[in-house]
């Protein structure tokens, strides 16, 4: 083959491939435009929840105006009263810097001007103030003179937000985030097993039925909580017979205390007091369009797993016992499992999923 023929072949190949590429890009652009046209009008403007889901109920959140630089911490967290400088610093030492516009942002969130808090910096969502922490909790749990010396709080956690609505397409695999946090003043570690479910119906926050789950919903979704506590994954699960392992679709987390003592000094809010939970949803390609509901149940792991946690929590003979106490259990007074006698009327977290 002479050089001229080779040149012609190459040029032709490039022209043909470029043509195919250009055609593909045009098609892709057209498809994108069509997809954009499919997005319902409700997605424009502010992302305010339908009133039927709230029923006029009010959410209470703290609000401080004109925050000033706190010289103790170099950020803008309010200087709560009745704590010494050392107590104050120890209480918040593991948290990110508190932004100057924190409460402005919090208000915008509660007003529905912004919605997806997982896009936010952790300087906002890792603060206990995001979940209502205020002077009232400081006085009740963290001021020694005001605390009831005959009571302690072994159990308490919260799930945020209560309800979320997301839009997906058949065939998508998506991960939805929500948060679980230890309540203020809790002195024990809590181990929670998290179970995603497809419940029969969706409720609003006062328990009225919003809609029924479409029939055969279980055929169209694979659900999994991806969070597996490191202690469980690395030290407990390998020892367990299959029958005792938690199902792969379940999550398990260890919440540390938010009030603990080291060498007689009082501390609070370790880094893992709040955990972002990943709920993975695989939407089957043949899923009919419509509105579905996914719920979260919280329970205690089985007795075998509980016993293994106790061993790790209590056995001072472990070479890394001190490290575990300092970085996982935070010198908690005890270990408890599940939500105990406390539960919610419906689901700890409810996800409304619009398949479009």
């Amino acid at each position, binding site marked *: 083959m002479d050089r001229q023929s080779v040149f012609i072949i190459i040029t032709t190949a490039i022209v043909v491939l470029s043509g195919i590429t250009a055609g593909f*890009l045009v098609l892709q652009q057209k498809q994108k435009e069509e997809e954009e046209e499919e997005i319902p009008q409700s997605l424009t403007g502010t992302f305010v929840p339908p009133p039927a889901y709230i029923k006029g109920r009010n959410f*209470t959140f703290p609000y401080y105006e004109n925050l000033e630089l706190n010289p103790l911490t170099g950020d803008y967290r309010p200087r709560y009263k009745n704590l010494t400088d050392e107590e104050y610093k120890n209480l918040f030492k593991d948290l990110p810097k508190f932004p100057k516009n924190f409460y402005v942002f919090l208000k915008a969130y509660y007003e529905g001007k912004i919605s997806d808090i997982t896009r936010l910096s952790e300087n906002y969502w890792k603060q206990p103030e995001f979940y209502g922490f205020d002077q009232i909790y400081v006085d009740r749990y963290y001021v020694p003179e005001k605390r009831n010396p*005959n009571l302690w709080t072994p159990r308490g956690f919260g799930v945020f937000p209560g309800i979320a609505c997301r839009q997906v397409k058949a065939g998508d695999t*998506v991960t939805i985030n929500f948060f679980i946090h230890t309540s203020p003043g809790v002195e024990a570690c809590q181990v929670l097993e998290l179970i995603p479910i497809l419940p029969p119906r969706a409720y609003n926050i006062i328990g009225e039925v919003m809609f029924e789950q479409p029939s055969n919903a279980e055929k169209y979704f694979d659900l999994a909580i991806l969070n597996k506590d490191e202690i469980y994954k690395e030290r407990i699960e390998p020892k367990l017979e299959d029958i005792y392992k938690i199902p792969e679709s379940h999550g398990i987390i260890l919440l540390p205390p938010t009030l603990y003592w080291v060498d007689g000094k009082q501390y609070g809010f370790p880094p893992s007091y709040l955990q972002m939970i990943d709920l993975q949803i695989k939407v089957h390609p043949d899923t009919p369009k419509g509105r579905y509901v996914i719920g979260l149940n919280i329970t205690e792991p089985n007795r075998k797993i509980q016993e293994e946690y106790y061993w790790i929590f209590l056995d001072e003979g472990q070479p890394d016992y001190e490290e575990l106490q300092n970085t996982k259990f935070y010198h908690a007074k005890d270990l408890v499992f599940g939500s105990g006698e406390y539960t919610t009327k419906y689901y700890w977290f409810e996800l409304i999923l619009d398949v479009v």
Partner: protein
Amino acid sequence: MLKKIVALAVVLTALPLLTPLIAHADTANVTVKWTIPQDISFSVSYPTGLTAIEFEPSSASFTNEPAKNQDDTTPAMRVTNTGNVNIDISAVFTSDFPTNVTEFRLNTANDYTGGWYWTDANETTNSQTIVSSLAPGSSEDFWAWSSSTGKVPYSATPYERTLQLTSSAS
């Protein structure tokens, strides 16, 4: 040299074809519609060292036995609404009382003549509202008592029953 040019041309031309495939693999963008900023959150406190309401009667039969370690200033249980909406709380047992235990009482004061009670005839069916409209940051204290008719059979391990507390926004 020619081979390199051909290979390069193919790779360059193929890249735009591959890019959308990579971008759409596995995960998808999730469109946020709305969230409800409710924090479903609680805490439960007990007399120091306890993780439940406990009874330790000194004899096998008992009447209005007070919960362990409760007194005028220390309730058997304190429930705090650490969330951000007012809540109601209802209570009911999840299983029958142990043999010969006939009554469980709960009150918001250290007085067994008031408040709520469950008997061995309705302990799993009589769901009662024990807290109404508890504001965020507020607590409710409870004192508890238990009674039997005749002797409760000895057990090497404590009898455990769950008084399920169920909250909902009020």
